């Protein structure tokens, strides 16, 4: 009975997965996205094999999580490492073929002396756009075929539609002798012809005779160094890495970001751990009145989502209107977030506020886990309070909290939220060629390079991400080895 029910549940679930997969396969086939198509196909086949095959018991429990892991963790990591060797980014998002057709389209100029057309843009029954053109002699054509007028099932686009579908309107072309008819405003048209000709792997400007050749930088470039945009994705080898360490203007700011990232992570762990430890030692005492109240109130900063607290601190630290300057310091004018050094102190302070309750919690927990006999034995042997702490409590505490401290270091190494929300990485370093601030961590720098404002340089950002990964992985691996966590896990 139960077996029947669970078989039914399994059939239902796998059936739904298959149905969704078929829908996805049809949809990806429709747009010819073979990459996604193949992945979907393989994933579906794996699901069916694992859930209906024999001898796949363990995999049935691993597969769902693995599918997500493979796509959204492993694939993206591998892709990041790969993209670090390319120039992908603004102006380099297309394949070479796409870039070429774009360049040719943009290079179109009106053929001198060609007749003006009166045009209307029509939307067909399927929603696609068509061009109805009337030449000066009164001949009307629809997409090049002679017609008497607009077909009844076609709708003439009015100004509002013209504006909202501008890209499609601009892309309309009707080939005629000597070029193609196009329109820019939806009411007048002209014959246009590309000024660039593509032949033999190079572009030639028909009017000036300039030759543009495809270069390794992912551009068509002329001999005097003028490049046609857009470019395309191109494998650039170690250029991104070389640039990070050889560009004079980039090197100094980048090195200081490196140093600051380490300092920030290390100091954050140290300060939060120290404060947490002191509080745990002070408040973990039998018979202390209000112990529970202290504990539940002190962990509040940890319970509040940290992005909210970080924003609150931004407001409080504001130089002109903030609560700290105006309220607590009676109208002082301390540039908490605007002076390079003070800004660093400020983010550390905010991070201390955010992080100490966590350390307080785990230190308290670890303290309570230390067996009373050990402490008692040390006392009997004549250890003083300091000796007891230094020789017994602290070492035992570090054993149980050690891995968490390492994890905390790794977390703070990439603590994007605090930096981005409190200072935005600022104050800015004016001489740096990319937007860089003096409190920027590597990760917030990556975010700015990749998504901040002008000139998204994804290839460069991915190269930086790869470096961060190598650093964090090296640190974690070294510490994991020391904590014997591995042997315990595989026992």
């Amino acid at each position, binding site marked *: 009975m*139960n077996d029947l029910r*669970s078989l039914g549940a399994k059939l239902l679930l796998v059936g739904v997965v298959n149905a969704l997969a078929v829908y*996805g396969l049809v949809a*990806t086939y*429709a747009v010819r996205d073979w990459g996604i198509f193949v992945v979907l196909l393989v994933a579906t086949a794996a699901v069916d094999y694992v859930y209906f095959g024999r001898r796949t018991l*363990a*995999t049935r*429990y691993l597969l*769902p*999580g*693995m599918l997500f*892991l493979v796509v*959204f*963790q492993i694939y*993206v*990591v591998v*892709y*990041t490492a790969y*993209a670090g060797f390319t120039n*992908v980014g603004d102006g380099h998002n297309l394949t070479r073929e796409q870039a070429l057709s774009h360049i040719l389209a943009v290079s179109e100029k009106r053929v001198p002396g060609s007749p003006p057309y009166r045009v209307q843009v029509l939307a067909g029954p399927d929603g696609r756009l068509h061009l109805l053109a009337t030449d000066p002699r009164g001949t009307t054509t629809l997409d090049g075929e002679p017609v008497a007028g607009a077909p009844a099932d076609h709708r003439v686009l009015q100004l509002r539609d013209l504006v909202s579908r501008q890209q499609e309107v601009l892309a309309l072309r009707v080939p005629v002798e000597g070029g193609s008819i196009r329109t820019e405003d939806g009411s007048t048209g002209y014959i246009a012809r590309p000024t660039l000709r593509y032949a033999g792997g190079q572009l030639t400007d028909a009017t000036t005779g300039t030759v543009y050749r495809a270069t390794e930088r992912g551009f068509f470039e002329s001999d005097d160094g003028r490049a046609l945009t857009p470019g395309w994705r191109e494998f650039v080898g170690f250029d991104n890495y070389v640039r990070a360490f050889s560009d004079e203007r980039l090197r100094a700011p980048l090195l200081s970001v490196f140093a600051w990232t380490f300092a920030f992570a290390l100091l954050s762990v140290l300060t939060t751990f120290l404060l947490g430890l002191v509080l745990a030692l*002070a408040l973990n*005492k039998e018979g*202390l*009145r209000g112990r529970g109240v*202290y504990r539940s*109130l002190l962990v509040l900063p940890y*319970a*509040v*989502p*940290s*992005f*909210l607290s970080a924003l*609150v601190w*931004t*407001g409080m630290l*504001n130089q002109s*209107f903030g*609560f700290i300057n105006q*309220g607590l310091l009676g109208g002082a004018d301390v540039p908490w977030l605007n002076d390079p050094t003070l800004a660093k102190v400020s983010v550390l302070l905010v991070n201390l*506020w955010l992080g100490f*309750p966590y350390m307080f*919690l785990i230190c308290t927990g*670890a303290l309570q886990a230390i067996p009373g006999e050990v402490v008692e034995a040390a006392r009997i042997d004549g250890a003083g309070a300091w000796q007891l702490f230094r020789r017994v409590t602290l070492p035992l505490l570090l054993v149980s909290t050690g*891995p968490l401290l390492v994890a905390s270091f790794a977390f703070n190494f*990439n603590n*994007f*939220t605090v930096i*981005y929300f409190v200072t*935005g990485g600022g104050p800015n370093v004016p001489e740096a060629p990319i937007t860089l601030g003096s409190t920027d961590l590597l*990760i917030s720098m990556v*975010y700015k390079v*990749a998504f901040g404002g002008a000139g998204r340089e994804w290839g460069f950002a*991915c190269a930086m*991400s790869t470096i961060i*990964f190598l650093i964090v*992985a090296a640190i974690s691996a070294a510490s*994991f080895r020391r904590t014997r966590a*591995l042997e315990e*896990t*595989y026992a």
Partner: protein
Amino acid sequence: MTRWFRDFGWRHVVGFAALVFALFPLVFVISASLNPRGTLTASVRLFADASLDNYRALGDIPYTFWFVNTLWIAGATAVATVLLAASGAYAFSRFRFRGRRLGMLGLLLVQMFPQILAAVAIFLLMAQIKGALPGIGLGTQWGLVMVYLGGAMGVNIFLIKGFFDSIPRELDDAAKVDGASHARVFFTIILRLGAPVLAVIALLSFIATVNEFMIASIMLQDPERKTLAVGLYGLVSEQLSANWGAFSAGALLGALPSVLLFRFLQRYIVSGLLRGSVKG
């Protein structure tokens, strides 16, 4: 008196000082959220005035959308994360199969790479998916949840496996003798007895998702689809001073779910974390 101070008094001094440090930003936000003038400057004087204007002002921005979005995105991520990680941990804890050791080592390696480092790749991947399957691509919340689930296995599985290992195998065997299938053992025995650690994973995953800004900000552009982190950051970064009252009100309400959940599960968190760290 001095004896009392040496034993207890100084502890109260330390504790009180820490309380002041921990709580004054919260007091400030509460005061600012009640201040009807709603600017940063006006908020400097604590509790100068009190009204609910700022809370009403939240109706003028898509705050309710952000709040609901955050709750369901974080809730769905938390539940799915627990299910995926728990079933994975069950496999590693109860089955012996080829590639088991390698699989665990691989997971340990993979989880060292935080997803935010791959933000660019995630963006490009989701843009590609959007081209074929707009329902789960860039700009959708389902897509965002899927991205978050990529990190579900990672670190959680070790915490959960450690706990499952401590559930006696005799229980499984007894149930199997009575004719229960492995799926039944998983759902009725392991998941129930593992509830404490699963609650911790759910809470940590919920809080982490509520806090996540970077991927949410590149995934969600439509104002009504944003999460609280993305929405409120936009609100403050545009006009820090003028929007301060509304932000404070929104921040207080937004913090409530996390704080409440935390209150209920705090006990489990500490023991879960330390236990996980000791056992690996």
